[in-house]
């Protein structure tokens, strides 16, 4: 075991800024990408649903 306490763990032998700065940036970027992916999916679904509705309306007017 490398660490005797949590504070020692967070201190990272004096390299806290560098080590945690690396992992924090990676975590934020991954979380950000997942959020962007979800937003894009919801937007694509909304647009597709609109296209389906619009397509239906068009078909209805054609048959009249």
């Amino acid at each position, binding site marked *: 075991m490398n660490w005797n306490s949590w504070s020692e763990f967070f201190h990272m032998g004096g390299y806290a800024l560098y080590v945690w700065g690396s992992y924090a940036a*990676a975590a934020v970027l991954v979380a950000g990408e*997942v959020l962007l992916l979800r937003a894009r*999916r919801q937007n694509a679904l909304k647009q597709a649903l609109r*296209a389906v509705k619009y397509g239906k309306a068009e078909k209805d007017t054609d048959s009249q």
Partner: protein
Amino acid sequence: MNSINWYKYSSPATFYNLAGRLAPWFYAAAALLSVAGLYIGFVLAPTDFQQGESYRIIFIHVPASWMSMFIYVVMAVWAAIGLAFNTRLSFMMMSALAPTGAMLTFVALWTGALWGKPTWGAWWVWDARLTSELILFFLYIGFMALQAAIDDPRRADRAGALIALVGVVNVPIIYFSVRWWNTLHQGASVSVAKAPSMATIMLTGMLVMAFAVWMYAIAAALSRARSIILERERNSQWVAQMLESKV
């Protein structure tokens, strides 16, 4: 013949459902491997006798750097298949990979800067390895900007595929830069030709994290490909049938 019908899976409609079923498993694998990799990297792996604790950046820096190059190669392969066979899905996969590749390239550069400062005394140097990785970042950004600038998706695909294919020459330059030139960046710690020059537990942590990043990249690319398919095929019959129940 009893072979797999690949044409079936090259249809966006089939792939859309397949990707939807597979993506959650890849996300789960990425999460589990990350937990395992970080546990090995931060709890089991000992302090480095030269670099102290700063070396622990390796468990994110190397996996992100490997995947940043690998994703570009996969993009170029999809580009080549798309150009050769004119398959829509290949181009969609190519486009789906780019943002994840760009993000991981940024992570590689960022963590490299944060590792360079305590070990070399500089955030950045115009060293061959660093510079070629920065060019990779610009290639990803250029690819996405070019595709976004062309309205016709077919033309955007072809232009993007060209930039992906031409840019792939940069990947071996990044990889071999530490051998071809005198660089401040260290040589490869792991290669196919010789035994790895690092402790087994450190290597294990690094490889587990590399698999975690790999699984994440697959999950993200599959999710993004689904959105791209929906965006491009929203006027097609199969999308209408799929969404009919929701209207």
